[in-house]
């Protein structure tokens, strides 16, 4: 076995230099993606970023313009969807309305010309995994939204495939059901240990489900990494602003050098960046380079924690939003809107002057020109 094929065999889905154009519009821009066997990969991005398009390409529902797709080491770029070893779950459930649940589950198996006994067995197994034995003889119209999506998952399940593709499966459900099914999908992944590729625009779904997240924008992957990586060390300003709710604070300023130590000079304050994990050569460059300091609301130090922080400033509280478990404070710093989070029992009121601390180790510095993290 050559090195190349061995490498391919290890990853379940492999996307090589994939491009797709609709007429003159380039929807996917030479994508490379390796998805390991049993991995849960989430494609995350705002609408129109090409995440669903990429999933449709993997499924074989769209013909690619350039590049290749391998599933389990086999080049499937021009294979029919049914021959790729994939199962797919759609946002609108896409159940066949004239068939019963049983008919929906066995439709693909009948087309695969499986013997009747085997079809019955697989349907029964999927129904028991998803706890919907009682629903088998109902029509989709007689089911609730959550039940319908469960049937849709079951339809992928009976196919006994290596790769599951989910196209925003929970977007049509209400918040409570969404949370329930999210856990169910995670549990399913833990039991089956199949490769799953999951498209969503919901960052909570992405963070909770993913082994790795691929953040997409304008047809290319901005960052591919574990949820923690993406949260803690976003590669650029776009990813930093996209992940996290409430989203990250950005303070414009300059990167300067003082006593051999990097400092951030904002409007009306200055902070040492001692302990900031600069990425390689990022620190180089002329002094006074325009940068943005990004800090998540939940990483702003308050109360007793500010002791020892490299920067302590006082801000005036503008709006207080109690959320129960914690309270969100809106204020301003250096002429910019600035949000931070305090304990839910806090007694801070609008108009109060509150000292806050910024911790360089948890901050992010972005180059204004390139948007990249330094």
């Amino acid at each position, binding site marked *: 076995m050559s090195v190349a094929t061995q490498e391919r065999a290890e990853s379940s889905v492999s996307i090589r230099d994939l491009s797709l154009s609709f007429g003159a519009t380039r929807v996917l821009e030479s994508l490379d993606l390796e998805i390991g066997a049993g991995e849960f990969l989430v494609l995350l991005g705002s609408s129109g970023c090409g995440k669903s398009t990429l999933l449709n390409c993997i*499924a074989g529902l769209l013909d690619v313009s350039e590049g290749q797709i391998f599933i389990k080491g086999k080049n499937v770029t021009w294979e029919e969807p049914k021959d790729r070893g994939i199962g797919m779950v759609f946002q609108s459930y896409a159940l066949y309305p004239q068939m019963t649940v049983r008919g929906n589950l066995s439709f693909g198996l009948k087309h695969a010309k499986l013997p009747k006994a085997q079809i019955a067995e697989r349907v029964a197994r999927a129904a028991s995994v998803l706890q919907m034995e009682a629903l088998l003889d109902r029509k989709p119209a007689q089911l609730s939204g959550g039940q319908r999506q469960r049937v849709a998952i079951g339809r992928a399940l009976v196919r006994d495939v290596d790769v599951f593709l989910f196209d925003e499966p929970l977007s049509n459900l209400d918040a409570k059901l969404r949370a329930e099914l999210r856990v169910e999908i995670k549990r399913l992944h833990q039991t089956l240990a199949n490769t799953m590729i999951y498209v969503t625009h919901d960052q909570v779904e992405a963070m909770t489900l993913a082994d790795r997240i691929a953040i997409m924008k304008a047809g290319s992957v901005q960052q591919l990494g574990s949820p923690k990586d993406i949260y803690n060390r976003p590669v650029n300003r776009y990813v930093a602003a996209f992940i996290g709710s409430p989203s990250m604070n950005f303070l414009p300023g300059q990167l300067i050098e003082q006593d051999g130590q990097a400092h951030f000079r904002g409007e009306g304050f200055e902070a040492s960046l001692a302990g900031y994990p600069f990425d390689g050569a990022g620190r180089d460059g002329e002094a006074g380079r325009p940068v943005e300091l990004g800090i998540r609301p939940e990483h702003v130090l308050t109360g007793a924690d500010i002791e020892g922080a490299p920067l302590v400033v006082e801000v005036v509280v503008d709006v207080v939003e109690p959320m129960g478990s914690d309270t969100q404070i809106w204020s301003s710093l250096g002429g910019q809107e600035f949000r931070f989070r305090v304990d839910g029992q806090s007694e801070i009121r609008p108009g109060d002057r509150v000292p806050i601390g910024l911790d360089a180790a948890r901050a992010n510095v972005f180059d204004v020109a390139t948007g990249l993290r330094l």
Partner: protein
Amino acid sequence: MAESTVGALPTAVATDPHGPRGARPRPVFSRRNIFLYGTLLLVAVYYALPLYVMVVTSLKGMPEIRLGNIFSPPVEVTFQPWVKAWSEACTGLNCDGLQRGFWNSVIITVPSVVISIAIASVNGYALANWRFKGANVFFTILIFGAFIPYQVLLYPMVILLRELGLYGSLWGLVLVHTIFGMPILTLLFRNYFSSIPEELFKAARVDGAGFWGIFLQIMVPMSLPIFVVAMILQITGIWNDFLFGVIYTKPANYPMTVQLNNIVNSVQGVKEYNVNMAATILTGLVPLIVYFASGKLFVRGIAAGAVKG
């Protein structure tokens, strides 16, 4: 409300046992109703009167008709004109009545409807779901076809049928009806199939169904309403056709409409109004039955289609 306490909450009024309940009653003979139903009645009478005259006349003998009271009911009811219209009326040398035309029309209509709907539904499905290369050009040409006046195409069609050896035959007319029905039917089916969620089609592809599998097992069962609409359009359109029937067939193969014309407009002998009326009603009966029968099916079809899956 005299007994209601001063200062009582307005909600108390609703629960007052003596207070008004239910919707506000409307007078039956309001000016609005009189005007509305009066107009409707007038229009209905205006449209129904000719039918009444036809039915009444067809049940009278010729001496009674000659008296001239076209609105009076028949004194002596006779079904002789109906029998004559169906099996004895003469057109040219043939004296076997409308029945020959009726069967010709049946032989023309049934295959025309079945073939045109079968082809157009597949056309519409391919155009809506498979977006093959050149689909838009094909569709534009087809739509363009729907707007070409028939008269322009009459003579080229004659040549075409002659070359095919179908000129004058019933199958030639079937071919003409199938072709001329294609643009509007394809448009109808394409629009309907486009309204079916695309994800359903994608799901069926992932499940391994092919072009025909998706069409026959997923699309067609969901499309009863549009098939009924297409059938109504085609049956009435083809049954009522006169122009193509008279041009592309020969006397032995004339459809019912053409034969009716020949009976009614015969210039020889006495004008038998009662026979003419009976013949006309007989000819119009098929579209009428289609409307009444399929109307119910049509509504049921729409209702069945409205249940979201």
